[in-house]
């Protein structure tokens, strides 16, 4: 609450960004836990990765932190690698979901409990 009240008078800090990252992360975790559609679970994973990206960029930002102890460009480069890995993960998970849909005729992950060929 103190943080929200000080938002309008003080400059933005890393902790403001991290609260946004925490909201995105929590939404992603809830989405992964509750959605029955496999693509909904995928969207939850995207939200979690974005929450992590917000934190990385905030920790490396030259506007939000002093130059000492800052991640600097490293944070942005890590965020880029996370984006690339998210793209790769989405491609493979989508292929698996399509295969699952083709063989079972359903996209409900509650039915994905057998490994029979």
């Amino acid at each position: 609450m103190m943080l929200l009240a000080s938002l309008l008078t003080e400059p933005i800090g890393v902790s403001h960004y991290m609260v946004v990252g925490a909201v995105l992360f929590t939404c992603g975790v809830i989405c992964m836990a509750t959605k029955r559609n496999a693509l909904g679970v995928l969207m939850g994973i995207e939200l979690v990765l974005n929450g992590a990206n917000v934190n990385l960029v905030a920790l490396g930002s030259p506007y939000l932190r002093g130059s000492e102890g800052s991640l600097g460009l490293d944070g942005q480069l890590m965020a880029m690698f996370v984006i690339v890995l998210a793209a790769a993960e989405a491609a493979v998970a989508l292929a698996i979901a399509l295969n699952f849909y083709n063989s079972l005729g359903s996209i409900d992950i509650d039915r994905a409990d057998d490994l029979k060929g």
Partner: protein
Amino acid sequence: MIWSSFLFLLCSLLAGGFAIAVVLSNNIVRMAFYLVLSLSATAGLFFLAGADFVGAMQLMIYVGGTLVLLVFGVMLTAQTPFLAMRTSSGELLTALVVGGVLLFVLAFTVTNVPAWQPTNTPAVERNTPVVTAAPIGMALEGYRVDQLDQPDAELRQGMSGYLFPFLIVSVHLLVVLVGAAYLARARQAANDDVTNFPSEVRG
């Protein structure tokens, strides 16, 4: 009120609000649309933090690539019974309680670290634009042009760029895309006469 605070508030409310909308919506098509909006607002947050190249990549790769892939997945599997699959209200309630506790712990932690509090001494002047595309490109090629003034010579030794992770991630992308194409290929049915006995069909 300073403009950067206002824009931060706008972008963060959009990102968080549409993320909550993704969780609460049951329709998979609407979820995909809300996700597009949430990730676009996150790109706005990146721009505000001075990460212009990462923000542009977020828009191009994430919103333009990954989410288009997801939307195609939604369209390919959007049969009417799967369009809106409801979770039971008990599960949703449990998840909301657990998620609320998790959010409280995370927010409480990040607002109590002294080093992450708002400071009045940013590393650059507020009206100097930060240009990061060229230093990021050089870092991926193996040269850290942003660390040239690092006073410690031993630390400068270790800052030799990101050529190796870049190599690994490019090979990884190639392998993953080939694997995805292999997994998602059109399967030929075993009783398909055209593929098994083409001469009979033609004759």
